[in-house]
């Protein structure tokens, strides 16, 4: 409503200015905050293309010795960022796909059929979401050792299981909104319930699957606590823990240009994702957040 009025007001200069003036403090506050964020990110980008000496003398934007894209090469190759990046990509892609394969059928069955334990599972999912990960971490560690699960597969499994409750609950609400006539029509045409799900029902909730996958991707890519505990060899370290290792070794290497290049490489994937999908992500946050 307000924005419509505003648009109309555009053409009536008098009212417009009065209104905009009353909003001025708001503009100033928000712009100051965003200006800070922008300076912040642009400086990091500048630093990632400068030498350590330039960074320390505060001459990041002069580029006196030209650009230094070799910082990125250095970070990627000698600081192991390539390995960390590959691991994170593997963890997020595999777990995002697997979690949908586990959660979507479960969400469908829970929303469509009433059976013994249906309600228990539903509330179990919600309780599971609010259990702090510190409560579950030690027994999982013991279990993984006992069952000899280690390496990348361990983190993949953990990320799948960790995201099942949220994904299932999220998809459950979408299946519940679908009309039953789809299944009835399919049944009349002789389509089995299993096939009906994979061929007809699953494509119908595609938008929800995309949204939930974005969230799962972000959470796995940015995950830190579990990775810090379970990634005990550099072969399985994802970007978050990897970046911490780079920061800790900075005392010895002193290559600050490469450090900032590593920071840029780590945040770039989610940053780009956000640039294209910010509307969807924001809608997802507010849609999911209110329920709590």
């Amino acid at each position, binding site marked *: 409503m*307000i924005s419509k009025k505003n648009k109309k007001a555009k053409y009536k200069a008098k009212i417009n200015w009065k*209104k905009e003036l009353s*909003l001025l403090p*708001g503009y100033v506050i*928000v712009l100051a905050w965003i200006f800070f*964020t922008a*300076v*912040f990110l642009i*400086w990091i980008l500048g630093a990632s293309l400068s030498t350590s000496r330039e960074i*320390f003398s*505060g001459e*990041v934007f002069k580029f006196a010795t030209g650009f230094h894209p070799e910082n990125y090469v250095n970070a990627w190759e000698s600081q192991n960022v390539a390995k960390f990046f590959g691991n994170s990509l593997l963890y997020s892609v595999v777990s995002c796909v697997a979690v949908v394969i*586990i*959660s979507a*059928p*479960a969400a469908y*069955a829970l929303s469509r059929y009433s*059976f013994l334990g249906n309600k228990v*599972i539903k509330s*179990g*999912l919600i*309780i*599971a979401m*609010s259990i*702090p*990960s*510190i*409560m*579950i971490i*030690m*027994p*999982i*560690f*013991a*279990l993984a*050792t006992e069952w000899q699960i280690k390496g990348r597969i361990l983190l993949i499994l953990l990320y799948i299981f*960790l995201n*099942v*409750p949220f994904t299932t609950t999220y998809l459950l609400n979408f299946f519940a909104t679908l009309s039953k006539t789809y299944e009835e029509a399919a049944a009349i045409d002789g389509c089995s*319930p299993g096939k009906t*799900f994979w061929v007809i029902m699953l494509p119908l909730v595609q938008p929800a699957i995309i949204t939930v996958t974005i969230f799962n991707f972000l959470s796995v890519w*940015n995950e830190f*606590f579990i990775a*810090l*505990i379970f990634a005990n060899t550099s072969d399985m370290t994802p*970007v978050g823990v990897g*970046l*911490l290792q780079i920061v800790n070794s900075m005392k010895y290497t002193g290559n*600050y240009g490469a*450090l900032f290049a590593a920071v840029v490489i*780590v*945040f770039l994937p989610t*940053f780009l*994702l956000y640039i294209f999908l*910010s*509307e969807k*992500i924001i809608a997802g*946050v507010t849609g999911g*957040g*209110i329920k709590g």
Partner: protein
Amino acid sequence: MKKNRALILCFVLPCVFSLLIMFLYPTIRTFVMSFFKIEGITDDVSTWSFYGVENYAKIFGSSTYRKSMLNMGSIWLFGGVLTLSVSLLFAVILTSGIRFKKFFRAAIYLPNVISAVAMATMWIQYIYNQDYGMLNTILKKLGLEGVRWLGADMKFWAMLVAFVFGAVGYYMLIFISGIERIPQDLYEAATIDGANKIQQFSQITLPLLRGIIKTNITFWSVHTITFFLWSKMFSPVDTEATTIVPVVYLYDTAFGGKATITRDAGAGAAVGVTLAVIVLAVYFIVNKVVKDDDLEF
């Protein structure tokens, strides 16, 4: 129907399995562990010995743990007041008919999608850096002395501000969605009655946002109780008293930090249980104290 039963079983089983193995079993086991004397996490159950509430006595007797709880309390109180008031302010500004609302909203939420490790690194290595950092450059331009932001006396607050900066966007989004559900005609009626913006805020917006504020306080509490990453990033190698929080204490006791001499998984479990109980208490208290009046609008 029989066919359906097989189908349901196949569809639900993997999900139930993950609930049992990832959530139910570990929660129960952690709870049990907190009453036993256990040194290593992977120790066999046969080596556990019953310890009563000794683990709890141990952690509450430890000055490090008490300090970590105190820090958590400060983060909750000061960080909470700061985060919730700034995010409410932004939410009110962005719903006041401002232009470029969508862009502003997306820009303020941005830190939430970036890896927090990268965010923390940027704050530590750039904003707070003593030699070339943003804050000290500004101070020097103003002719003032640079500050050691990461020195023992400032570190906690430096960490808190950096954390709040990232968190504001999330709480703002939730406030915005709450404000947008308040019908516009209430404001129109108030304007006709001569109420100014501030009166409208305190008489309409704030009371009708009670449910949302409740949600946000709950989220913030859980957020603070599970606080770990920022503490770890601000003292990455050795845990320091200024930034320690309970989860870091748990990590050090159970998984062995540099400062711990002997590992103690039982005490770690006791920390976990204590924090889980606090989470439960928060849900309970917030639901009791801040009553939803079931306002219909």
